[in-house]
């Protein structure tokens, strides 16, 4: 079935956009804003609001009707979400297989000082009513905190003989997160460690896709739950040990 956005009538294509242009407000910038809307495939674009922002910038709000449509039957949903493994099962399965604690090292790397997300996953308290990895008897968690340089993290990975490494990145301006995350992968590869650890990253602007692209085993975005991470770790550990 082909669908479009909906405002108040099936497939009316109703859509709202807003942006600024590096032009003073005037006939030229208005025209430019409408041309952009047309290029985006918006039919009947209507400028509903304009504001001169000074310094040769202007702001536009436009409504219109999108002509693009999507065949929803053709959409490939990347995959079904891996099911959550129950707390007790994780502990039992890992214990049976490894008969030792799994060493988990976590940090926010680079100059990033946002710890709330990492703590949400690691700390016993957890997140949204879901207990954190520290509560799992089979995990031995080392939360190294914030602003850990990748080099330093590598040392700790080796010293602590980590099985799993969890890194958080929240600041993304000028792609600093890509830089930091890539550096860590390169360092673990350089040290011949990459294949021995499960490397996971997380943060509000990260996604599984990006994580895989950067060479991580997994990636967790906004609103991730500790139990999802724990299940992922357990599944990977068991797969790897096969």
């Amino acid at each position: 079935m082909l669908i479009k956005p909906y405002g108040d009538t099936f497939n009316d294509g109703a859509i709202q956009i807003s942006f600024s242009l590096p032009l003073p407000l005037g006939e030229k910038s208005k025209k430019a804003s409408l041309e952009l809307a047309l290029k985006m495939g918006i039919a009947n674009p209507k400028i509903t609001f304009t504001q001169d922002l000074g310094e040769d910038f202007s702001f536009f709000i436009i409504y219109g009707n999108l002509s693009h449509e999507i065949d929803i039957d053709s959409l490939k949903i990347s995959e079904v979400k891996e099911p959550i493994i129950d707390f007790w099962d994780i502990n039992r399965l890992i214990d049976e297989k490894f008969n030792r604690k799994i060493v988990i090292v976590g940090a926010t790397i680079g100059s990033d000082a946002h710890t709330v997300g990492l703590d949400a996953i690691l700390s016993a308290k957890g997140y949204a009513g879901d207990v954190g990895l520290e509560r799992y008897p089979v995990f031995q968690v080392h939360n190294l905190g914030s602003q850990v340089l990748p080099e330093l993290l590598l040392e700790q990975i080796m010293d602590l003989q980590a099985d799993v490494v969890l890194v958080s990145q929240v600041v993304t301006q000028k792609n600093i997160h890509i830089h930091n995350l890539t550096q860590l992968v390169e360092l673990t590869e350089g040290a011949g460690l990459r294949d021995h650890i499960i490397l996971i990253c997380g943060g509000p602007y990260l996604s599984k896709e990006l994580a895989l692209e950067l060479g991580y085993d997994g990636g967790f975005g906004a609103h991730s739950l500790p139990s999802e991470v724990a299940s992922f770790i357990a599944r990977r550990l068991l797969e790897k040990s096969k």
Partner: protein
Amino acid sequence: MSNPPKDSSFLNLPRDLIDEARYLGKSIASAVHNKIKDLSTLSIERASLRMLGIRGANQEGTPWVNIFTEKCLSANLIENGALMVLAQVCKITRKDPQQSVEMVSEGKINLNDLIEVSNYEEIKILCHELANKAYENLNYKKKERVNFINTLSSGTKPYLYVIVATGNIYEDVKQAKSAALLGADIIAVIRTTAQSLLDYIPHGVTTEGFGGTAATQENFAVMREALDEVSQKTGRYIRLVNYCSGLAMPEIATLGLIEGLDIMVNDAIYGILFRDINSLRTLTDQEFSRRVLSFGEIIIVTGEDNLIKTVDAREMAHTVTASQIINYYLALKSGLKPGLIGLGHAFEMDPSEDDSFLGELAQAWLVRDLFPKSPIKYMPPTRYLTGNIFRSIVLNAAFNLVGVLTNQEILLLGMPTEALHTPFIQDRFLSIENALYFKNAAHSISGEFSLKESSLIRKRAIAVLNKAVALLKIINDKGLFNALSEGVFASIKRPESMGRGFDGVFTKSSSYYNPFLSLLPGEVNGESED
């Protein structure tokens, strides 16, 4: 900038409770002062050099003041004070301080050859002369600036404070000027991540920062010039803010003074808790920094908003109040008058909680009533904002109304895209428009109501103040340093001998001399109390 608010006791708080809080604050601050009064730090020494006007860096970008003080340290001369060493070098070389510092830094003069300061009294006089001249210079520049400001309108309260944080000072300039034209009164240039961990001030004009733009003397100047230009255009003086924090806190204070900043984010405890900077280091640095800022009549704003960003803001509201009291009395000790002490706090309770808006009102009135002569800097909701920009606008509207209703002086404006990225140019417009609506349309609202004796707001404020006093008592009993090492704030433990920058703290020798310590304003008395 600060006039007494229209109604200074809205909550009708129990007098004895306020008195107790004040007494404890004073006592805690005195104890801190006694503990640090014999200490100095490498950053204070570098700041003192910068007060003389020393600037610049070597090819690798390492500032001359850093190289010079490191050499003083290696030569075991630092405990005399870097200025004393420099004065002696000046005397020997007959060069001016800048040249002398560069010569030492480049190894053209070996400090080890000095071994000790000779002709002590003579050098001391020379040292004093250098400092005095610099001081007079700065004083003159400050007056010039005040004159410039007086040619312009000063805007109306609450002042609208917005941030720029593109990472590129030239983009920052565009965004700042746009905001000023649209109605912002205050522009804060946010620093690149973790600049506070650098034990130096980066050098030059910079265009690549992460989550903010480097604080450098050159960037300060670029922005100051841009804001002066736009001030003249709008006829309204636009204030400039940066962060006076981190390992280089005293140097930033000095650069703020030199480059005409108006407000600095400056918290006595923030670096200890959130950047793991050693407590002796930070508390020593903050005293010097604040004396410099006091001289410049630069308003400080404290950072208590951070205390409720990671914990429950309702439950931990009293830590904000306790920290404000401590910051306030430490600031008085460092020469800042009440009108220059901007207390920070924030609208950060979970907005989905029943009556959370009342909780915010209680907190905002509490800080207003506790510090009637001081400006209050009110931070907007951030942590419960999501990518739903429309909802963020609603919460920011609630924040703006509370700000106007409770007579907060400075409103840091919340952005619709808070949960997404540092502000885009249009985000600031939308936020200013939001705030201006309440500022104008609810202009006289703060004088309209009185609170019922039985009100939830009053009950809540008293409960918070009670808990704050209890916490202050503990801190006073233990002393702030021990209290910090035991984790009284945000459950973060910071032992006195650990943390970043501890190695930059030293005990001043009996022959230590730094003429700025007598030139800069000292403890404020009497006037502080009401």
